[in-house]
């Protein structure tokens, strides 16, 4: 293609904008004053050549972009892809943490809305468990590690809430939880003005473990629960003590807590290690 012709076909780009659409006020285009851009009149050959030139460029650029997109994603090393996706989850979590307010509450429901229970997730529960020998170990809250019994927990103000339990799989239940506010427990055994960034919770057999950010676990609707729907927790629901909270998915509401540790290092998290969002909440 000669430079000469390039200059000439460029003139086609000069389109006039004052053409009207047919149909007058019966045409929405005229009602909304939609502009119309037409080139000057060209003979057939010039018009076809111009369209061919534009088509070729369009298909080449579009095709190249599509190939870059497809093969760029395909051939991206798994490690890079993982960093990108994981990094985005972290970024999303960071936004969510920054916009978080403990004053915003999850809805609570009347008793007639309670739905049947469902057992899901037996990690960390093993076979059988003697709840009478259970003790809760708490580290990082006060100067030294403390050991508590269920009576110690039950001595704190008793809270009932009927909230929505949401599983990360996509189903949800409305359940009545009874227990004590995690924040009340912290106030009793520690100093709420000097808190760590995270809390780690682990089952007695250490087979299941979750990490919580301090904001979410100190929320007034996050409970250390010992009753479900008016009955003491069964073993499969996490007896004798578990987390219940509408703030995070079920994967975070650890059953049968054995040890609680307050820490500034982000705790390990069972499902977080398997590709799920570490925060999984709000």
């Amino acid at each position, binding site marked *: 293609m000669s430079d000469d012709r390039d200059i000439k076909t460029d003139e086609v780009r000069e389109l006039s904008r004052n053409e009207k659409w047919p149909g007058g006020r019966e045409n*929405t285009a005229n009602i909304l004053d939609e502009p119309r851009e037409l080139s000057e*009149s060209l*003979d057939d050959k010039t018009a076809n050549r111009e369209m061919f030139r534009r088509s070729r460029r369009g298909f080449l650029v579009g095709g190249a972009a599509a190939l870059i997109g497809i093969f760029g994603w395909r051939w991206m090393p798994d490690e890079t892809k993982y960093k990108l996706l994981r990094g985005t989850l972290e970024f999303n979590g960071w936004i969510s943490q920054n916009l978080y307010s403990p004053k915003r509450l*999850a809805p609570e429901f009347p008793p007639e809305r309670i739905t049947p229970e469902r057992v899901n997730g037996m990690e960390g529960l093993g076979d059988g468990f003697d709840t009478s020998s259970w003790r809760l170990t708490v580290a990082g809250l006060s100067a030294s590690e403390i050991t508590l019994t269920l009576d110690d927990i039950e001595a704190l103000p008793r809270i009932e809430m009927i909230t929505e339990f949401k599983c990360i799989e996509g*189903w949800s239940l409305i359940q009545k939880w009874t227990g004590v506010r995690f924040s009340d427990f912290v106030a009793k055994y520690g100093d709420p003005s000097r808190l760590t960034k995270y809390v780690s919770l682990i089952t007695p057999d250490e087979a299941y473990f979750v990490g919580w950010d301090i904001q979410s676990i100190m929320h007034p*609707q996050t409970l250390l629960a010992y009753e479900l729907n008016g009955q003491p927790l069964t073993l499969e629901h996490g007896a004798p003590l578990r987390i219940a909270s509408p703030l995070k998915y079920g994967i975070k509401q650890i059953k049968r807590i054995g040890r609680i540790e307050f820490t500034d290092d982000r705790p390990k998290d069972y499902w977080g290690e398997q590709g799920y969002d570490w925060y999984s909440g709000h």
Partner: protein
Amino acid sequence: MPKQLEKKHPLAIRWMHWLNFPLLAMMIWSGLLIYWANAVYSLKLFGNEFFHFFPVGFYDFLGIPFRLAEGMQLHFFFMWLFVGNGVVYVLYTIFSGEWRALVPVPSSFKRATRVALHDAHVVKELPPQGKYNDAQRIAYTLVILMGVGSVVTGLGIYKPTQLAWLTSLLGGYEWARWEHFWLMIGYVAFFVVHIIQVVIAGWANFRSMITGYDTVEAKTSEPPAPNSQGELA
């Protein structure tokens, strides 16, 4: 026969249109990976289920089962690109004036009905139109509103405690998920109709979404000025 080139689609619109295809595809694909973990929706008539979303063979054929974590990672990554593309598109149509070609007016519904009757081969004449006919105006505006709906219902599912007011407005957590799902089915329906219409409309129309231009027969009343024809020939 003299022709005129007509500018149809600005470069920005063309890029955003084509980008939207893989982005929406990734949102639907990752959404399916998530939905599989609690695939509860179906079409029911008089209490009988006659289509379940989705049959087991559909999941197995596409290799969907047990990829929830991957689905969530993809969904919460591509959502930024999908929403970003949509927001830039809407802003572009507002500031460029392209909205004039895209939104309906009250009388559009009457003309859109005639377009539908024409497409069903009931009437012969198409009502007058600009770049898009009135059925297109309604469809292309509706699909943007659906996009807004997907973001709103998505947020209601994603942050049901912090945005409890929003989730409640949508009818609660489970309704929000249902609405989010049916909006996806809506995109698929839009896509199917869109493809059929593009095939029927033909090559020149398809090409205009790639080049930005189409040709129209020049108005014969004024033959091209000899000077300009001489230069261009």
